[in-house]
């Protein structure tokens, strides 16, 4: 199913923290405890979506998209939706767009964007290693949770 070209995306700000650092977008998802790294083309597309680009504007930013490219772009963007980082926009506000950060049509060579997903901080971000202590009290964490000191 193709994505409508006028679809735009909203960042689920209440569920994530995100920051672009040295060309890498780092995203932390509070509810899952997962975090994500977006480099290269993924960070560029993230920046466009953050600025308010529609899907059509993003896809038209590339010189020529082959069938596999379209699938890769769709997979990346909708993957971020599946992860709870983006959601489909419901009330387009052209004034909220950052015009100077939107893509220029046909100026970008396509490289398949991907995000790296990590879950190794979940036990600290989601559990409560201080609170979840055994009967001896802190710093004796219950089995399976991390110890702090």
């Amino acid at each position, binding site marked *: 199913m193709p994505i409508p070209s006028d679809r735009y995306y909203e960042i689920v700000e209440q569920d994530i923290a995100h920051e672009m*650092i040295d060309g890498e977008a*780092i995203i932390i998802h509070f509810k899952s405890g997962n975090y994500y790294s977006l480099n290269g083309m993924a960070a560029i597309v993230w920046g466009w979506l953050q600025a308010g680009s529609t899907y059509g504007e993003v896809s038209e930013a590339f010189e020529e998209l082959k069938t596999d490219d379209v699938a890769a772009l769709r997979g990346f963007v909708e993957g971020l939706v599946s992860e709870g980082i983006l959601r489909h926009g419901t009330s387009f506000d052209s004034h909220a767009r950052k015009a100077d950060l939107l893509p220029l049509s046909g100026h970008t060579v396509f490289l398949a964007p991907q995000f790296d997903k990590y879950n190794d901080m979940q036990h600290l971000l989601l559990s409560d290693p201080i*609170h979840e202590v055994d009967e001896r*009290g802190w710093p004796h964490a219950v089995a399976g949770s991390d110890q702090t000191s």
Partner: protein
Amino acid sequence: MTSSVRPLSRIYETLPGAYFREAREAYQRAVRNAGISHNVLLRVAGILIQLRFAGDVAQRMILPTLAHLIEDTKDTPQWIFHCWDDASTRSAMPMPTAEMKNDHRRNCLHKVSDRRYVAFYQEWMEVLSFIDREGEAYACYLDASSLPMYERAAPLRQVFNTALNLRGCQIVHAAAVGDNEASLLIAGPPRSGKSTLAVQCLLRGMRYQSDDLCILSHDCPPRSWSLYNVAKIREEGVGPISSELPLEAFTEGEERKYFFHVNTSFPDQILPVAPVKALLIPKITGEPISRLSPATALDGMRALLPYSISEVPTADNSGEKIILKALGHLPVYHLHLGSNSDQTCLMLKDFLRGS
């Protein structure tokens, strides 16, 4: 651990403001019973906080750790914190009901918290804290005379942090040392060497902010503040310095450690605030010589964020956002930590000077 003899809250509807007022009434009863022992002004990351103690036991246990923040000023405080303990004031703080504890996550009682009020219950330590984000807080211990070192060395962290979050600051799990111009944050998992390194730097004349928890802002450049003026030493690190410092022993889990208040032994070396020059991620190598190598922002985030979030009870996700924003302005380095602490401290001094 002392068993609780606290009554249950009489608030039957989970109204945040109502439980907050119940805490205020318990504090006022404590004042009637035991009087106000101390009433001090603290400057915490630029915020002027009045700290009042009912009875003298809680202040004896935690005020020395905050003594370096005391300020003599006529300015009006932005916050008033009230602190007491049940045992010495004979004013028991009502416990949260089962209904209130229905959504008890990361020490926050979400059922009785909202955008204005926050209630924390650190059940294992029997500490209840109530914060009105408009500038008032209450913190009650069950029996302050038996406070664990966890609290004595870093008291009221949930109350401080809630106030700090409103100013774009977060308490972070990091040691911090520096010179007169800048600081270095040293962050990593437990036993990565950061606390020992901070004390070694202190003993070699560097300025000191923390061995464990300090305040970080998301400014550009980020700034760090000293919050707790304590330094802890492991048993094996005590040897040659034990006779020079007023060390107090304590046990953490199975481990025997020592601590001292930095402002009593090294008053001129506390660094109240400084721009952060870099975030260092230490790793003990077993080699004699220490060295630095560049690390990524993602490395820095892994070292700093998860332990900071897990160490500080919090009602929302402001901390993650503040730390991530600060990381956007911070160079990050791996610190390959060798055994020669003289060389390590010299290297860090040179790094701070930019050479």
